[in-house]
């Protein structure tokens, strides 16, 4: 400890002196992605998410492939542990040892990975764009970069909805089968009834913390619903400093002001623990909340929107192909195999997450008939919005989150000007990208 201090300080002094001399160049390696790699075949490594369901899906899928492809063996690994998957992948890109495919590439990180030269443009495969568009239809569009290229394959989504605890609703004297939650006024009234009745401390408790991605689970779904499918940024301009944005923000601010939503982070799962009677979650929640008698409804809008017209946030995870991959030909074939109709069915059945496919509900209608609790999500998956594209996504989301934390969660200043300030900042960031 003491030695580190000493040496750091000495080294620092030395370094500060050296500053002047540091117009020098740091060498960055030459070379570039060769087009030969696109067709090369051979063994590859892939990473998949580390949750139990996805691991079992991933293992089975890799096994099935390996049985038929002795010369193109695939090694499946759980994504290494880190603060977040994005950091691990980012570090792997820089180190040049990223795997061929990562089945857990967050759309919010794709712009950065692309800027770093870490991702393969899938459109450069002859059938790249056509395969993606055939599989995902119109939903694919929001995963293109500014030039219309695909640096990610839209894979699966977790469209978020409002989960509510039927038992607590009944206890509070509310109709648990047809809860009054579709308009802001209804939602606020229902929330107030729940809290006043003392059945739960809060009506709803999305994480009130400042991480950039948290707005994906409070503002973004409601804004998408209110506007019929608008994201935070469209055509390089922030969208949300409008009436719809103000309505959504004011709605949330009322929840916080009246103590119906919690300002403090909760260390457990507020919905499972009964700390909150509602939650904003995706279909992964179905298997997690087995012990809760729950129901699900679409997110509310100001005047109420019917379920089949309500948009929400996708919470998608995609597949990226990384430039460190030597056998990209195999990787592409494997990517198509793993997102084929059969594997998508296996994914749906094993994980309950929604493959980003056109006509999801009809393609797997037998599954949804047998599992009605997923049917709502399957239908909702057709109407989702994504985070803004480009290399500054995270900075943009953080700028939004900071404004949100200030004016909505902690009720400082007025909502309108805070949204406008955030929009200005995001416009600037989007222009850089």
């Amino acid at each position: 400890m003491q030695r580190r201090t000493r040496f750091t300080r000495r080294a620092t002094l030395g370094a500060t002196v050296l500053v002047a001399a540091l117009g020098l160049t740091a060498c960055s390696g030459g070379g570039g992605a060769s087009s030969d790699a696109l067709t090369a075949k051979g063994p590859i490594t892939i990473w998949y998410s580390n949750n139990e369901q996805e691991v079992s899906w991933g293992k089975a899928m890799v096994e099935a492939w390996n049985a038929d492809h002795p010369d193109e063996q695939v090694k499946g690994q759980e994504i290494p542990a880190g603060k977040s998957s994005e950091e691990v992948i980012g570090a792997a890109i820089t180190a040049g040892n990223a795997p061929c495919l990562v089945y857990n590439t967050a759309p919010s990180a794709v712009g950065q990975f692309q800027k770093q030269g870490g991702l393969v443009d899938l459109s450069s495969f002859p059938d790249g764009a056509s395969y993606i568009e055939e599989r995902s239809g119109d939903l694919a569009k929001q995963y293109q970069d500014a030039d219309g290229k695909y640096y990610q394959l839209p894979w699966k989504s977790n469209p978020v909805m409002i989960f509510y605890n039927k038992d607590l609703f009944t206890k509070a004297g509310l109709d648990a089968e047809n809860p009054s939650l579709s308009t802001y006024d209804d939602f606020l009234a229902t929330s107030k009834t729940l809290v006043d009745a003392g059945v739960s401390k809060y009506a709803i408790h999305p994480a009130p913390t400042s991480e950039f991605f948290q707005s994906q689970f409070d503002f973004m779904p409601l804004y998408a619903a209110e506007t019929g499918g608008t994201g935070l940024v469209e055509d390089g301009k922030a969208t949300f400093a409008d009436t719809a944005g103000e309505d959504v923000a004011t709605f949330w601010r009322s929840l916080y002001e009246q103590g119906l939503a919690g300002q403090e982070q909760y260390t457990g799962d507020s919905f499972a623990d009964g700390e909150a009677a509602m939650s904003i979650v995706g279909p992964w929640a179905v298997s997690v909340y087995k012990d809760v008698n729950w129901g699900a409804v679409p997110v509310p809008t100001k005047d109420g929107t019917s379920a089949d017209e309500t948009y929400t946030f996708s919470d998608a995870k995609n597949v990226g192909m990384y430039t460190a991959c030597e056998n990209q030909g195999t990787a592409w074939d494997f990517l198509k195999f793993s997102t084929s109709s059969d594997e998508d069915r296996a994914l749906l059945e094993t994980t309950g997450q929604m493959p980003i496919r056109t006509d999801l509900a009809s393609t797997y209608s037998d599954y949804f008939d047998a599992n009605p609790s997923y049917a709502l999500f399957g239908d909702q998956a057709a109407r989702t919005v994504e985070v803004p594209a480009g290399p500054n996504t995270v900075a943009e989301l953080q700028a939004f989150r900071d404004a949100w934390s200030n004016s909505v969660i902690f009720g400082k200043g007025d909502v309108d000007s805070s949204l406008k300030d955030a929009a200005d900042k995001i416009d600037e960031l989007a222009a850089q990208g």
Partner: protein
Amino acid sequence: MSTVHEAAAASPTAGRSEEAHRASSGGPGSGHRAGRRRGDDPRGRRRGGLLGKNPLGLLFSAPYLVFVLAVFAYPLVYAVYIAFHDYFFTAPGAVVARPFVGLDNFVTAFTDPAVIRSFGNVGVFLVINVPLTVVLSMVLATALDRVVHFRGFLRVAFYVPYLTASVAVVAVWLFLFNGDGLVNQVLGPLAPTPSWLINSAWAMPSIALFVTWKQLGFYILLYLAALQNVPKELYEAASSDGAGPIRSFFTVTVPGVRPATVLVLLVSTVTGANLFTEPYLLTGGGGPNGASTSPVLLMYQKGIEQGNPDQAAAIGVVLVILVLVIALLQNRFAGGKDER
């Protein structure tokens, strides 16, 4: 040159070995011994040449030297390079321009009010954490040194938080300090609203308290070691001069452990300036409203999450310089007498 002296003063062991060296190699007042030593020298000098008197010493120190160069010096110099260029991390094969941009990164970073605020926040943290650490660890170490029963248990008890992973301890503190937590229930009407960790006035002091408590065991250990070197005769002399326990604490213990105090000051300042885990976890990303954001948390957000390592490096360079200045001042005022 002065750095070497400060560094020596900064660590009790280095300070002692230097004194020992002076004593044997002829500091002021040991003239003839120095002469004898010089008599031995010629052979050594002839052998030394470029590699110095003891070439073998280089070999022995090489592993650590390499470690320091690779793990501290190189990244530090590289960070300075990054701070002055338009830089982002890239895949090994990618060819990108990284033009020299002068002070642009510094201007971008430090025109962001959040960055300025984070430095203020960490200032608040240091003002609470460092003195509290020094006082508490010195007093507790003295008490632990005297205590007869349960000595081992007590020492371990203070050390356990230091060994426990922050992530685990943070969860406990979240329970203790939330709105319905134990602390607020004990305080009753005196509890702040909003509660500690989401109160912009209390978030940073709460973190400072948490870190003080968590690190205390380590600093107590440093003081315990230093206390073993305070000659017992001094206490006896003090007591025969009529000094009570409090008087001898201030006139014997405090000056006796001064080298340790300088070390504790420096280490707690440096670790404090690098504050990250607590705002990241305890206050959910520097909340509320950035009231507990630290410069290193911002460096993480900008450098790692948002892909602007150049701005992050600019913040880092300024942070290093500020810490250096603080450390220099601490040395002047707390470690002054060792200089001569």
